[in-house]
């Protein structure tokens, strides 16, 4: 019997070998392919045209409405950074700066003046000046008329504008001239000059629509009906094309008053599936993945291990605080020693090193160590099994049966932890915590729910019996009133308002929060910040876990993109982005 193959047989063999090689290469599964990967670098990461002034960005969410003052969402903030600017913004050093004003108003420079409100309470008047050459994308000058109009729209509850609290706080707006206006605030707080959620609206386009029917305004606004109208935008770019749910194309705004941006055209593509996002990046369909709305850390780490050399991957720790809210009404968890024992029993640093390659720093409190108000003088909980065991013994959980502790009444030390179903990283953290706490005799039961149920009902109405694992996203020097003040405990009586889900009620903590809000000088409020953090770390109404970083996957040729780590996205400085 001959072993020679027929021509068809040979062809099939070659085909099989080629197909295998193709898949291995494409999946990046073989280390032997490193040299091939390097060869293909230029093809997959350079734009189709080497001199191209186009940039294609992939992100996971498409903004629902583009109206700057109705509904807040990260995707919209990302686009808004390119097409509009807030009055003030936090910069890369987390310091407040002007974005659509000439000089940041302060009490020291006389642009902010303490005064009394008509009710006789302490208030403050803050004056801002718009850049003289600012104009809308259709060439119409941007003036205080647009500020006045935005204020009217925001104050009118029929429009459903977001951040109603801000419009309530600004009880009066005075127009001084075409470029200067004064806001009168009904409360004196240290962040009196922050106007980050306030965007002018094009009065020349929107007023007639608004005046026709304020109730219908949010539907009929040109920001929904005709977003390619250049007169809606005043940032470095205007929206020139869009397909709902798919992409937004931005082109240079000929009337932009600031530094001219480098890229002629920017296309943002919404790709909901992260595996598809990776494939889009590798195929060159997109040039970069936005850190603000891109891959999860574990996905980025996996991507880096396969294709890291082709891209500039930046991990920027930020203000995404991954934590566990504790239900203090649970009799087991009401005991501080149990909460402390649990934190001692969690080896968070080990998790950080093993799962997150050291990129996800362990949190000590809700104040980021990058924040200027962070204190070093707080209790820290490095993994210590002996301390954890001793604390549980001391709390009365001494009887260990089948590895689980029981109290004198024979009740097991069983606690439920809930989180968002489908979030792989959180599910993994839960499983590790379950194993680590089992080691000190705690029976941790996992029960997860769809995000809309978890956030819409379980946490909001404090229906979790033990622990709730999720994240908060904050801002620099963010006062934790809504999450820690005793008046912010959601109950049926207050229609579940507030986000103090742990239900901590501590007069000393309340006073410190109020003192932080009211002290205008940073040095004066620093001791109160320290008090807040000390109580937090001692009482542990919340078990701190990690500071989650954003992963920016960028082409090597892209320069000037600098992640901020806070809510003001990197696109607010898009005019500084360029090709190498």
């Amino acid at each position, binding site marked *: 019997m001959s072993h020679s193959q027929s021509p068809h047989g040979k062809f099939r063999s070659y085909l099989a070998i080629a197909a295998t090689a193709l898949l291995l290469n494409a999946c990046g599964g073989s280390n032997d392919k490193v040299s091939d990967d390097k060869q293909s670098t230029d093809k997959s990461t350079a734009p189709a045209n080497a001199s191209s002034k186009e940039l294609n960005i992939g992100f996971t969410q498409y903004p629902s409405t583009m109206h700057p003052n109705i509904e807040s969402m990260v995707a919209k903030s990302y686009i808004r950074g390119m097409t509009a600017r807030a009055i003030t913004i936090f910069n890369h050093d987390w310091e407040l700066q002007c974005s659509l004003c000439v000089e940041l108003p302060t009490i020291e420079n006389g642009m902010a003046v303490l005064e009394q409100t008509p009710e006789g309470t302490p208030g403050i008047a803050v004056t801002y000046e718009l850049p003289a050459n600012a104009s809308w994308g259709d060439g119409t000058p941007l003036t205080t008329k647009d500020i006045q109009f935005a204020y009217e729209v925001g104050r009118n509850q029929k429009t459903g504008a977001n951040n*109603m609290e801000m419009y309530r706080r600004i009880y009066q707006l005075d127009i001084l001239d075409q470029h200067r206006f004064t806001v009168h605030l009904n409360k004196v707080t240290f962040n009196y000059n922050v106007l980050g959620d306030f965007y002018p609206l094009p009065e020349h386009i929107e007023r007639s629509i608004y005046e026709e029917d304020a109730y219908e305004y949010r539907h009929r606004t040109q920001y929904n009906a005709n977003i390619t109208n250049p007169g809606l935008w005043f940032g470095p770019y205007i929206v020139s*094309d869009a*397909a709902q749910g798919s992409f937004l194309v931005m082109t240079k705004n000929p009337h932009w008053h600031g530094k001219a941006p480098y890229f002629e055209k920017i296309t943002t593509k919404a790709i909901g599936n992260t595996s598809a996002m990776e494939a*889009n990046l590798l195929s060159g369909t997109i040039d970069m993945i936005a850190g603000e709305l891109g891959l999860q850390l574990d996905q980025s780490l996996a991507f880096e291990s396969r294709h890291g050399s082709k891209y500039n991957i930046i991990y920027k720790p930020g203000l995404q605080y991954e934590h566990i809210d504790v239900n203090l009404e649970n009799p087991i968890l009401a005991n501080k020693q149990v909460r402390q024992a649990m934190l001692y029993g969690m080896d968070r640093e080990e998790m950080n090193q093993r799962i997150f390659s050291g990129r996800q720093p362990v949190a000590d409190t809700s104040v980021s160590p990058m924040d200027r108000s962070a204190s070093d003088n707080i209790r820290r909980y490095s993994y210590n099994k002996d301390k954890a065991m001793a604390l549980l013994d001391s709390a009365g959980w001494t009887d260990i049966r089948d590895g689980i502790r029981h109290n004198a009444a024979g009740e097991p030390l069983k606690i439920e932890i809930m989180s968002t179903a489908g979030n792989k990283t959180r599910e993994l953290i839960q499983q590790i915590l379950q194993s680590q706490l089992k080691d000190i005799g705690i029976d941790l039961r996992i029960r997860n729910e769809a995000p809309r149920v978890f956030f819409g009902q379980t946490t909001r109405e404090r229906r979790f019996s033990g622990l709730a694992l999720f994240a908060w996203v904050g801002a620099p020097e963010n006062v934790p009133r809504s*999450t820690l003040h005793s008046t912010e405990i959601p109950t049926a009586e207050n229609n579940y308002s507030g986000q103090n889900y742990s239900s901590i009620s501590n007069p000393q903590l309340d006073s410190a929060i109020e003192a932080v809000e009211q002290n205008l000088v940073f040095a004066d409020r620093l001791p109160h910040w320290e008090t807040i953090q000390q109580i937090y770390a001692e009482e542990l109404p919340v078990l701190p876990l990690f500071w989650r970083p954003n992963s920016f996957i960028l082409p090597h040729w892209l320069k000037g993109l600098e992640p901020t780590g806070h809510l003001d996205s990197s696109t607010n400085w898009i005019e500084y982005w360029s090709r190498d």
Partner: protein
Amino acid sequence: MRWFLLTRIIQSLLVLAVMSFVIYALIGLMPGDPIDLMISSNPNMTAADAAALRQLFGLDLPIYQRYLNWLGTALGGDLGYSRLFGQPVLDVLFPAMKNTVILMGTAFILSVCIAIPVGTFAASKPRSAVDYGVNLFAFAGISIPSFWLALMLIIIFSVFLGWFPAGGIAVDGAPFLEQIKYMVLPVATITIVSIGGHSRYVRSSMIEVLRQDYIRTARAKGADNKRVIWKHALRNAMIPVVTILALDFGFLFSGALITETIYSWPGMGKLIFDSVMGNDFNLALVALLFATALTLTGNLLADICYAWLDPRIVIGGDSK
């Protein structure tokens, strides 16, 4: 025939009326209304703000009241606004429906055009190498998860070969060929997945028909194999297949969520999913009602097709 059509239309309207309330109530019963979702992202929202917004969106009313309000305006021709997109429901729905019809319609036509001859051919040579080959391909198509197939196609044809874009749709005004390029991979994914099922239905139906007496008679009268299969057997074999295709008709408009998500194709599947998850009552309701109406229409067309395929079937009466 006229009486049959009238009855079916009345039945369909009743089904739609019941479905509209069921869908509305089911969405309304899901925990967390739109304001809850706003609260979860805005720590500064007070109870008063939340109450004002609930009143603004009409969410403070009982569910039946909200439904009746919606029904009243819908019967007047106003289907309302999408809460998520801030636009009239139809303005959001039609572009997505157009995209889905282009995607699913192309895939459906391709799938049927390939599945019928392939299934027929396999049935005409049962237990042959061709039949086994077709079965293998069919089962592979049925078994392969569409998300995996989609990712594999992207890796091969987009990442490695660079022939087609990995996702999205062409910008407005793009040349026709450019638009086709964006369609190739998503259409291929849906086609490959659905050919399997369709060809299996055709094959089994055809095998059944080929055993019938009249086929034997045709062969005995000297009709050649080609004529027997394509002229005598296929038409009768298509009756059960038409039922399946009619059910698929509804999917032409309701979209393929997974494929649309992976290819970032802005179609109905993704839109319906987002509207349900985002508590966008108006949009979800109208989109689902469209899908229901079109499924009912598909079934009506199927009934009419039965009579065309088999003259013994009389619409609206007893079979002969």
